């Protein structure tokens, strides 16, 4: 009796639960899809970062968890950054001012802080700025070169990538031998060619060590920049070059008014990454010099590790050093973030 069946009162539709509504709601769907990624970021990025910052306000030692450590406020930072120690005497000030001894004016006031930390900040900034500028210059040059029609172009491009593929520690060990005080191939060759009479002290003298470390970093970092910029160069429409050729533009003008503006957004991204990687470099220095001689190549990252883990004691202090890197990194990210939103950076046009 179909009719009876039809008349059978239909089972009342269950009112949808809150959960089931949230599961299908369009506005919430996005949230669900985002959740795994967010959980990943929170677990592996935000949580360690927050924990590190929290540790930096404690005197935690190794073996102590954050709950049982003493909260000491900004004491770690005060210790690291230090305070002004001024011996201000008016007589000395005037005599130096009028005696023309301006260099000595600075000596009246100095910051007394953690010498190793100050040195590490200087080293990190120096290392980052110099290495990044060199990497950019060489990387761009290589990219332009490789964009030309060369014989065996594919092979050459592959070779350029090699330094980037080799694990950092391996290349650091290779450089460790190249810079060896007694068995360096460079020293040996220089002696054979009569350019030097004794071995070059690559890593045993503060400035030599800094330049050697920068050289190794540049060697390793150039391929990343070169290959990425090369990819950018290939997106530049050839018609623009053809048009400019007809207009009689020189090669430099073509680079300056076509290539460079169109490449700007990629340069911004690549250089942001490059600066971030260089600033937080650890492996190369750890293997090559371990911060020596006497802290001349100590970076903030290696110093932080030494204080927190190797020193075996002061997790709090090590965390403070790591946290002190954040403002620098943040500044770098903000520059590229706001830069990327500007049309001049995006499209290379003069109007903002």
């Amino acid at each position, binding site marked *: 009796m179909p009719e009876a069946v039809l008349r059978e009162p239909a089972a009342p539709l269950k009112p949808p639960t809150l959960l089931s509504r949230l599961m299908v709601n369009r506005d919430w769907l996005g949230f669900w899809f985002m959740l795994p990624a967010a959980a990943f970021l929170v677990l592996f990025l935000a949580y360690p970062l927050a924990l590190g910052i929290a540790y930096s306000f404690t005197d935690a*030692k*190794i*073996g102590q968890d954050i709950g049982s450590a003493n909260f000491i406020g900004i004491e770690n930072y005060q*210790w690291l950054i230090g305070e002004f120690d001024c011996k201000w005497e008016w007589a000395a000030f005037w005599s130096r001012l009028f005696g023309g001894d301006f260099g000595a004016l600075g000596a009246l006031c100095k910051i*007394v802080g*953690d*010498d*190793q930390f100050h040195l590490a900040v200087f080293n990190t900034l120096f290392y980052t700025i110099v290495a990044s500028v060199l990497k950019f210059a060489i990387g761009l040059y290589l990219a332009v070169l490789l964009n030309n029609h060369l014989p065996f172009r594919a092979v050459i491009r592959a070779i350029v990538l090699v330094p980037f593929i080799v694990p950092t520690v391996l290349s650091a060990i290779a450089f460790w031998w190249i*810079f*060896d*005080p*007694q*068995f360096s191939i460079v020293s040996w060759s220089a002696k054979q060619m009569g350019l030097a009479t*004794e*071995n070059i*002290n*690559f*890593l*045993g*003298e*503060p400035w030599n*060590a800094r330049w050697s470390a920068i050289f190794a970093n540049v060697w390793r970092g150039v391929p990343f920049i070169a290959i990425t910029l090369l990819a950018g160069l290939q997106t530049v429409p050839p018609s623009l070059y053809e048009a400019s050729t007809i207009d009689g533009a020189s090669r430099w003008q073509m680079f300056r008014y076509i290539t460079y503006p169109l490449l700007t957004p990629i340069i911004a991204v690549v250089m942001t990454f490059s600066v971030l990687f260089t600033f937080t470099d650890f492996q190369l220095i750890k293997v090559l*010099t*371990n*911060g*020596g*001689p*006497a*802290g*001349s190549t100590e970076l903030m990252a290696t110093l932080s590790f*030494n*204080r927190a*883990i*190797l*020193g*075996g*004691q*002061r997790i709090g202090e090590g965390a403070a050093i790591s946290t002190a890197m954040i403002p620098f990194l943040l500044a770098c990210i903000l520059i590229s973030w706001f830069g990327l939103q500007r049309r001049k950076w995006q499209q290379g046009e003069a109007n903002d």
Partner: protein
Amino acid sequence: MKHVNRRSLLKGAAAAGAVGAMSQAGLLEFAKAWAQAAPWKPEKGAKLTILRWKRFVQSEEDAFMALVAAFSKATGVAMTVLNESLDDVQPKASVAANTGQGPDLFWGLYSLPHLFPTKVVDVTDVATYLGKKYGGWVPSAETYGRSGGKWIALPIGYNGNVINYRQSLIAAAGHKEVPKDTAGFLDLMKALKGKNTPGGFALGRASGDGNAWVHWCLWAFGGNVVDAKDKVIINSPETVKALEYAQQLYANFIPGTASWNDSFNNKAFLSGELSLTNNGVSIYAAAKADAGKDPKMKAMMEDTNHALWPVGPAGKPTEFHVAYPMMIMRYSKAQQAAKAFMAFTLEAENYDKWLIGSVGYLTHPLNAYDKNPVWTSDPKLTVCRDVAKRTLTAGGLGSVGERAASALADFLVLDMFASVCTGRTTIKDAVSVAERQAKRIYR
């Protein structure tokens, strides 16, 4: 990573044969009898993982692996031996202590157990047992092993850090032997440089050789980081004198020592580039091991000799030899097995052969082993017999605890010397930087 399996057992057997005193079967018999009688009964199904510093002398490791294999066979405890380079043992142990998991036993450097004295197992019973049986522990072993009235680690061995020199080259520089005073020693270094055969000590962050010589130098002139009450006294005229002396030494070093780690001087010495350095006897041991197949190494071995450190104005020996303490972590699930293993290694049947295998690289912490044949078999090794008795301990006059360990791990003294020698800072600045740092560590 080295699992004990059939192959490594065979290797161990070969090593035991090479060492000579007892066949593998004999060692196993002893091990079985020992395991029956020992007061420590391994837990059922116990597994032990040991993390040790990576050997510098192959025959030392062979002898060690032979006794590990014998212990494993006799007790049924599965043994895993991990090797890490010297500088990496400490961070690994720190992280393990921090996270509560990792190897059961650590075999590290100096005052490592004092970095986390609450995280290691009390081994007073093992220390008492061995001390009674083998003529007592040397004083420095008690200092390194004890914390708060109990033993927290056993200094299984010491590594004598002595002057290694080429007999022919110091003779050419007008010296019959290494002078016994600091002034004479400086003369020797100047003369060596004058002959274009300079010596040199590691001034990079070398936890073994670097720390050994800078502490000798500081103490030789009466300088100290802290006094007996752990009060910081590094800013003193004596420290300045020590730094001035180091500056003069450095001027006569081979170039590049500021970048040396622990292995550089070994390489340079063996290649004939270096006439004098400070090291364990591992350079000599390496030359000796290759002497059979390489005439160059044979000549090197014959020309190499060892000397104790010169005595400075302080008027007494101020040597700083490496101590190698072994400790059991509290999180270990096989603490009885670990205690049994520690006791087993220091029993005469094992330890005598280990000392012979290490050809003077390791020195004993227990008095009875003065009679070990290795100290008389080769007169060039005899200097190392007494290093455990002669050495001062980490922290100098002060306590050997975690603060001394921290100062060592931070390279406080080493960096002070390196800053001055490389000319990075003046003596006055280097001392005040070290003082500020020391005051924080010792607050």
